[in-house]
């Protein structure tokens, strides 16, 4: 049964807006030209391919549904989940957070997991009488979860290093002969298929190569399809197109696209192949796969980076243009509004808003059907509050530009022709400030992804149960203080965030160069 969370709906809206804008831009040369220039930049297309992978994962993770509970598995599977969860939370399932000491988020998480387990138990008991009708779990999972169910379900006891076969901490193991030794126990899943752990390097090499070959095969298929399509459009033979493409003679640098695609595909398939048998980025404190967490965090990062913009854009555009174009009292009011808002420290405002929301959610827990919904609302709220604190910059830019445009001859001519103010704004001002909006949106994206990490780190970001790079870094704070050091959570979050932000920044640079009228006139 599909579930559409609020952020999901907004993501679909954003995609729709993107498509509509794309169609609009395709018909207007002043927008199509710069985008074409972006498409011809090797750096930009490489960045776009990388970002497409991220967006793909994010979209898959936004298709939520209640999984169907199979009548057969009804008794076994959920119970197993419960048992497993019980095993994870263990004795502190019902304890107060204080016992956990400084690791507040960890405690919260286990407390909430415990809550979910109780809910799950309720569901089972509720589902049992009407077993004939299809029943759905109250749990909400996404398509990505389904695809990664292997990663999601293969939990260990606690920390394990990347590609490890043994746990990272010593445990008391009861030997068959009854004696107890403290040693590193074998992992339940990671490398469990190996009879002898010393074969690990050979196995890794073999599986890695196998994954890479699979990736290359998929890549070859895509390349052949692309060349055939290009050849058909250019009315050239397959061979000619292929030669032109590999010599870099095409207008769009398809060669760069294909090379980037090859790297990404080989990496993905290798990771998939290895991830089926190992924890390629290790496991965290409660034994969850870090690779899975990193992949789940992508959606959070993208949502923060894009929805915030969506939230702030209408206000910034409308108020900015109105202030600049209408002037007078309107200008004064809007200027005072954003000057006031700007002088409140952003973090303070965000902290206040998030803490208020948290109190509200605790007091009205019954309004939320599941933890996922709660976390989602908090994410949306974070987007809104980030938007409220960040629209002023764009608003100020737009006010300045409209102020200039108001005096430009063609606006004066339109007024002399009796064109209404609303029409002047829509027809003359807005299209001529759109490049500023575009540049700001792309530049803000990476800043917002990073802002999420910082806010989650100080505990006023997304919900602690939600996977996000900020939460991963936050939990890695204490792990780094351990001896021996647990570095992989931080490294994984860093790697994924870095790749996304780097790609976004590279793209932003090209977009800005393409749309900035001063740079365009210089060339």
């Amino acid at each position, binding site marked *: 049964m599909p579930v559409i969370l609020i952020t999901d709906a907004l993501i679909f809206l954003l995609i729709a807006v993107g498509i509509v804008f794309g169609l609009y831009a395709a018909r207007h*040369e*002043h927008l199509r030209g710069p985008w074409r220039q972006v498409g011809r930049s090797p750096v930009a297309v490489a960045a776009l391919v990388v970002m497409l992978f991220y967006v793909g994962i994010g979209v898959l993770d936004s298709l939520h549904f209640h999984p169907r509970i199979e009548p057969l598995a009804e008794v076994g599977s959920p119970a197993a989940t419960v048992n497993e969860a019980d095993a994870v939370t263990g004795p502190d399932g019902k304890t107060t957070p204080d016992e956990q000491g400084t690791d507040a988020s960890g405690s919260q998480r286990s407390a909430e997991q415990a809550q979910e387990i109780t809910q799950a138990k309720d569901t089972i008991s509720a589902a049992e009488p009407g077993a004939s009708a299809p029943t759905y779990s109250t749990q909400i999972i996404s398509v990505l979860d389904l695809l990664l169910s292997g990663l999601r379900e293969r939990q260990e006891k606690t920390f394990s290093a990347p590609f490890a076969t043994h746990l990272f901490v010593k445990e008391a193991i009861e030997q068959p002969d009854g004696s107890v030794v403290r040693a590193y126990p074998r992992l339940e899943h990671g490398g469990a298929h190996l009879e002898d752990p010393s074969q690990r390097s050979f196995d890794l090499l073999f599986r890695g190569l196998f994954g890479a070959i699979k990736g290359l095969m998929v890549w070859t298929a895509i390349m052949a399809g692309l060349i055939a399509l290009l050849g058909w459009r250019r009315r050239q033979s397959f061979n000619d197109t292929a030669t032109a493409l590999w010599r870099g003679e095409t207008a769009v640098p398809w060669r760069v696209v294909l090379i980037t695609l090859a790297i990404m595909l080989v990496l993905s398939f290798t990771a998939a192949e290895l991830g089926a048998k190992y924890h390629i980025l290790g496991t965290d404190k409660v034994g969850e796969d870090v690779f899975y967490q990193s992949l789940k965090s992508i959606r959070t990062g993208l949502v923060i980076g894009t929805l915030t913009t969506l939230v702030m854009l209408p206000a910034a555009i409308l108020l900015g243009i109105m202030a600049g174009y209408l002037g007078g009292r309107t200008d004064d009011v809007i200027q005072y509004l954003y000057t006031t808002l700007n002088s409140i420290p952003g973090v303070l405002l965000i902290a206040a808003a998030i803490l208020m929301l948290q109190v509200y959610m605790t007091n009205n827990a019954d309004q939320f059907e599941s933890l996922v919904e709660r976390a989602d609302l908090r994410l949306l709220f974070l987007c809104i509050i980030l938007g409220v604190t960040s629209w002023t910059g764009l608003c100020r830019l737009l006010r300045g530009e409209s102020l200039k445009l108001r005096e430009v001859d063609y606006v004066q001519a339109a007024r002399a*022709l009796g064109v209404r103010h609303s029409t002047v704004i829509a027809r003359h001002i807005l299209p001529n400030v759109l490049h500023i909006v575009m540049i700001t949106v792309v530049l803000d994206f990476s800043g917002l992804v990073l802002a999420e990490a910082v806010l989650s780190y100080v505990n006023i970001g997304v919900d602690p149960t939600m996977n996000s790079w900020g939460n991963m870094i936050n939990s890695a704070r204490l792990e780094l203080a351990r001896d021996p050091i647990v570095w992989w959570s931080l490294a994984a979050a860093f790697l994924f965030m870095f790749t996304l932000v780097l790609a976004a920044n590279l793209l932003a640079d090209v977009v800005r160069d393409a749309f900035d009228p001063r740079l365009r006139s210089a060339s």
Partner: protein
Amino acid sequence: MRDALLQVSNLTAELGGDERPVRVCDGVGFAIRRGETMALLGESGCGKSMTALALMRLLPLGGRIVSGSVQLAGRELLTLTEREMRTVRGGGMGMIFQEPQTSLNPVLRVGDQIAEAVRLHGRLPRRRVTERVVELLRAVGIPDPARRASEYPHQLSGGMKQRVMIAMALAGDPQLLIADEPTTALDVTIQAQVLQLLKGLQRETGMAVLLITHDLGVVAETADRLAVMYAGQIVEQASVDAFFAQPAHPYSRKLLESVPSAGKRRGELAVIPGRVPPLDQAFEGCRFADRCPFVMETCRSGRIEWYQPNTEQWVRCLLWADPRSRFLPDEPGASPAAVGSDQVSEDARTDADALLVIEGLKVHFPIQKGLFRRTVGHVKAVDGVDLHIKPGQTLALVGESGCGKTTVGKGILQLEPPTGGQVRYTGVDLTRIAARQMRPYRKDLQIIFQDPFASMNPRMLVGDIVGEGMQSLGIERGRVPRRRRVAELLEQVGIGAQAMDRYPHEFSGGQRQRICIARALAVEPKVIVCDEPTSALDVSVQAQILNLLKRLQQELGLSYLFITHDISVVSYLAQEVAVMYLGRVVEQGTAAEVLDDPRHPYTKALLSAVPSMDKAGRREIIRLEGDMPSPSAPPVGCHFHPRCPEALPECRQAYPASVPITETHRAHCIRVDDQR
């Protein structure tokens, strides 16, 4: 020439990539003697400025000199190292630029900037540097030079800044001064001051001047010899007297003919069809052949050599290949036929009732200060202007920049809300009615702007731009009839209907101005305010636009309020003239009365400052002291008295009333009667 100071031969420079290099100057050769002024004349895009930059070896990035030689006082410049070249720049050759506003660093004191130039070209002790700066400022005619040296550029007026630039160029005692359109950005009275200054300096120091300009009047008044540039080539070289007596190249001749003047009122101005060809192609034969009325078979191939029609003239044109030819033949098929019966219609309309009456129009801009935006004063941009625009006639509003003439235009159209006075159109006072009631009158009053590049939304198609007014005023609501009407209009202004689906940036300046005219015409107006519609255009393109405006006036019976600073355009186009100074009209009358018999001292000075090609018709330049005062604090009494050469003590008492001279001619001056 043996005694040449600067000898340029076969100079060829290119810009841009190797695949399609733009050959900005191609085989340019000329010589300048000591103490001589040589003018380089041509329209924009002909490579004048690039030639000057090539001489200084200051071509923009990607530019290179391909071949040729430049010798300054016998020293070859093109083989010098960059270090040696630096001593030549400033020391051997000084340069002044068109825009004094952007040539000075706004955060440094004027004196420091000149001192920098002084220090570069001679090791003077520190005390001597300051003295030298003051000396230079005095030499360029800046009053109170010691005080001015410690001021910042924004405290100086445009004319002052150009003087400072000249002072900087003089700091190294150059033998040759290259002046790149030195007065284009300045008003006529200031232009006259600067040109006089250049002449005086030349007399004193004996330096040579290379004057780059597009203004034939300036050339006629200041230069000794000239070279005409077309499409990167010099096509004619002559002494100024010989050139203005009989230009040898068809391009030169067309250029001269396209300058508007009172004598050409009856007919159309000569226009050159087409435009300057882009310079990124390989030329074969004469570059002007495609636009030339005398083009022959032989023009299209081979290299065109230099011919010498007389001792003082050289021309690159095959018409002179035959040594017997002495005169350029008359243009085939062209006759200066009168367009319509201008004179008759003028007389018939003189006593018609005014269509648009402006009485006591005031537009004041408040100066606000402090936290609560208290109004502490007003900039009186327009301060009581009376004008009458008659149907089918042109009223020219003349004045220097900053006198408020553009604001008058905007005030009439209610684009700037007037502070006081009346704008009566068919008996309705437009200043009293609400914005919504104004809409029906928008149809009748239209405006054309100065800058053809800024007056169209770059994001809209030409068809939509022209149709915008019809749509908003509900004249033609349907899409299909509107497009048909737009196509008609575009044909009418000579652009062609196929322009409808293109963007404004695909058109040249003159074509854009035509589209702007079509946009104004679309709502079938009665009065069009033309705000300097030709001042951003080259003279041959200006002629096309003026012809079009005149034709449209005759066909459609339009009235124009023609705002301009160009007296020659006024004398060609206008029936009546009003001269503005500091927000007020100082003299008003028919074109003949005001231009031939000016009574107000300001009008006299303004007219005398206009450079003229006609030597006999040249007046003694009345030099005005100082600059126009700020309209926020106009002088007490007559606004003009601090600069007036004829001022009396009474002028300080009160603003003079309007004194009638004839039935139509009036001036605001107490001395009008003295001269009668």
